[in-house]
C-alpha cells in the first residue's frame, strides 16, 4: 500500500489521483444517500451538506490560525511563554524594520499605481474597435504564475557590464539613451521599486477588468447630461467617470492591497529576499522554513493578518454601501 502515499512512476501517480477522486465521490455519495432519506430531523441534511466544508475550514483555517497566534507569544521550541518578545524583536531589529518598510512601500504603490493604470487604460480603450484585443493584452499577466512573471522581468532587468552587449531590455534602453547599465536588482532601495513594478504589471489587468465593467455600467443619461453642460475630455474623466466608479475603485484598491500583502512569489523568485528586498510574506517563509525561527515566522504571519483584516472589513462595508446605492 506504500505506493498510495509514495507513488514513484507516472502511471502510479495518475492512479493515485483517480483513486483519490473516486474515493471522494464515494464518500460524498454515501453522505448524500444517508441524509436524503425522508422523515429525518432537519439537522441531518444540514449536517450532511455543510458538515464536510465547515469541518475542513475549522480544521485547516480556524484552528491552525489560532495555534499560530498562540505560538507567536512563545519561544522557539514552544515551551516558554515570552509575551511580546518576538514582536519586539521584529519592530526593533534593523533587518526586520527594513522588511516592514518594504511591505509598506509595496502596499502603498502597487494598489494605487495598478488601479490608476487600469482605470486610464479601461477608459482609453472603452468602445474602440480593438477593445477586446487590447484588454486581453493587459489581462494576460493575470493568467500566468507570479513565478513566470518574475522570470519574464528578471530577464528584462538582466545586467551585463558596459563593455559587453546587453541582453536585458532595460539596460539596452539605458545604453541607447547613452547611460550606464545598472544592476537593477542589487542596489537598494531601487531594487524594491523594480520588484514593485513587476507586481503592478501582474495586478493592473484585474483593476482594468473590474473598472471597465463599472465604466460600462454608468447610465447614458449621466454622460449625456454632462455633455449638454459642456463637460468633455479630462473634465469628464475627473468629474463624471471617476466619481461614478468610485465604489469599484475602492474594491479594486483593497483587493489588490490584500493580494500584495499575501504574495511572496515575486520576491522569492527574483531576489530571494536578499539585498534588502524582503517583505513580510517572504520573510515569514524564510524565518519559518529556512532559518528555523518558527516563532518569528508566526509573529510575522500574525502581523500580516492584522494588516489584512481591516482592509477586508473595510472592503465588505464598502460593498454593502455600494449595493445599497444600487
Amino acid at each position, binding site marked *: 500500500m506504500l505506493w498510495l*502515499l509514495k507513488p514513484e512512476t507516472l502511471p502510479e*501517480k495518475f492512479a493515485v489521483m483517480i483513486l483519490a477522486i473516486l474515493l471522494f465521490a464515494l464518500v460524498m455519495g454515501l453522505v448524500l444517500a444517508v441524509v436524503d432519506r425522508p422523515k429525518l430531523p432537519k439537522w441531518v441534511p444540514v449536517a450532511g451538506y455543510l458538515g464536510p466544508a465547515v469541518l475542513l475550514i475549522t480544521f485547516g483555517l480556524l484552528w491552525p490560525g489560532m495555534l499560530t497566534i498562540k505560538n507567536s507569544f512563545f519561544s522557539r521550541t514552544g515551551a516558554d511563554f515570552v509575551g511580546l518578545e518576538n514582536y519586539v524583536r521584529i519592530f526593533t531589529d534593523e533587518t526586520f524594520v527594513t522588511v516592514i518598510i518594504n511591505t509598506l512601500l509595496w502596499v502603498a504603490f502597487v494598489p494605487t499605481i495598478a488601479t490608476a493604470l487600469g482605470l486610464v487604460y479601461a477608459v482609453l480603450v472603452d468602445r474602440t474597435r480593438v477593445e477586446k484585443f487590447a484588454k486581453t493584452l*493587459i489581462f494576460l499577466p493575470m493568467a500566468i504564475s507570479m513565478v513566470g512573471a518574475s*522570470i519574464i*522581468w528578471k530577464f528584462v532587468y538582466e545586467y551585463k557590464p558596459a563593455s559587453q552587449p546587453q*541582453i536585458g531590455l532595460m539596460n539596452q534602453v539605458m545604453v541607447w539613451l547613452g547611460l550606464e547599465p545598472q544592476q537593477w536588482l542589487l542596489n537598494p532601495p531601487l531594487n524594491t521599486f523594480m520588484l514593485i513594478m513587476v507586481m503592478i504589471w501582474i495586478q493592473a489587468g484585474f483593476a482594468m477588468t473590474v473598472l471597465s465593467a463599472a465604466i460600462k455600467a454608468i447610465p447614458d443619461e449621466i454622460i449625456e447630461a454632462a455633455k449638454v453642460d459642456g463637460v468633455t475630455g479630462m473634465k469628464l474623466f475627473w468629474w463624471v467617470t471617476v466619481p461614478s466608479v468610485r465604489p469599484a475603485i475602492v474594491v479594486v484598491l483593497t483587493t489588490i492591497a490584500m493580494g500584495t500583502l499575501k504574495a511572496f*512569489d515575486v520576491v522569492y523568485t527574483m531576489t530571494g529576499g536578499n539585498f534588502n528586498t524582503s517583505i513580510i510574506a517572504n520573510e515569514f517563509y524564510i524565518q519559518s522554513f529556512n532559518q528555523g525561527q518558527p516563532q518569528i515566522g508566526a509573529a510575522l504571519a500574525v502581523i500580516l493578518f492584522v494588516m489584512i483584516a481591516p482592509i477586508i472589513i473595510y472592503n465588505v462595508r464598502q460593498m454593502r454601501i455600494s449595493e445599497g446605492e444600487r
Partner: protein
Amino acid sequence: MSLDTRVETPRKLTRKEQRAVDSKTRLSSPAASIIAVLIAIFWTVPTAGLLITSFRPAADVRRTGWWTVFVDPEFTTKNYVDVLGTSNVADSFFNSFIITIPAVLIPIMLALLAAYAFAWIDFRGRNALFAFVFALQVVPIQVTLIPLLSQYVQWGLDGTFWTVWLSHTIFGLPLAIFLLHNFMKEIPRSLIEAARVDGAGHVRVFFQVLLPLLVPAIASFAIFQFLWVWNDLLVALVFAGPEYSPITRVIATLSGSFGSRWYLLAAGAFVSMVVPMVVFLSLQRYFVRGLLAGGVKG
C-alpha cells in the same frame, strides 16, 4: 462583431453610436492614443522578449539581445527539448496536472453542497455560520502553514499528494462557497419550491434543477481555482515532497540555479505558462464573470 445585436434596437443604436462617436471625440486625441499604446507595449514586450529568447540558439542568447532577431532571425526548438530533458521539468509538468485536477474538483463539489444548504435550506444559525465561513477568507494562508504541516507530519502524510490536495481544498473553500452561494441565490425561489412540492428531495433538486443552471458559475470558479492551484508556489513549497513538486516550484528553483542559462530558463518558463494561458484564453468569458461576481458584487 457585436454590431448585429445593436441593429435590432434602433433607438439604442443611435444612443450607443452617439456615445461611441463621443468617446472618439474625447479620446482619439493623439496623446490619449499614445498613452494607450505605450501601456499596451509595456505589458506585452517583456513576455514577447522571453518567448523569442526561448526559441533562439543558446549561443545567440548569451551574446546578443532578443531584439536582434529582427535583423538576424535564427530559431530553434532545441531549448525546449533540452529543458524537458533536464532534471525534473517534465515530471513536474505532470505533477502539476496531478495536483491541480483533484484540487479543483473536490472543493467545487464540497462548496456546491455547502452553498446549497446556505441558500436553500432554512435552519437556525444559518446567517451566523455563513458569516463564519465568509470571515475566514480574511485568514492569510501563511498563518495556517506551520500548524498544518506539523499535523500532517504527525499523521505521517507529509510530503504526499494527499496533503497538497487537502490543503488546496481547504484554502479554496471560503471563496468557492461565497461565489457559488452568490450565483445560487439568483436562481428564482419558485423553481426550487415547485420541485420540492412535487416531492423531490434535496439531492434531486440539487442535481436535476440547480446543477444545470449553475454550469457557468461552476466554470467561473473552476477557472479561478485551476489558475490559483496551477500557479501556486507557497503551498507547493511547504507541503509537496521534492519528487511531487509542481512545475512552478521547479522553475522557481531553476531561476536561482540556472543563473545565466537564459535559453533554458526561458523555455522552462513557457512550458509552465502554456497551460494556464490556453485555459485562460479559451475560457476568458467565464473568468471575467467570476471576477466581477467576486470582486465587485461581493
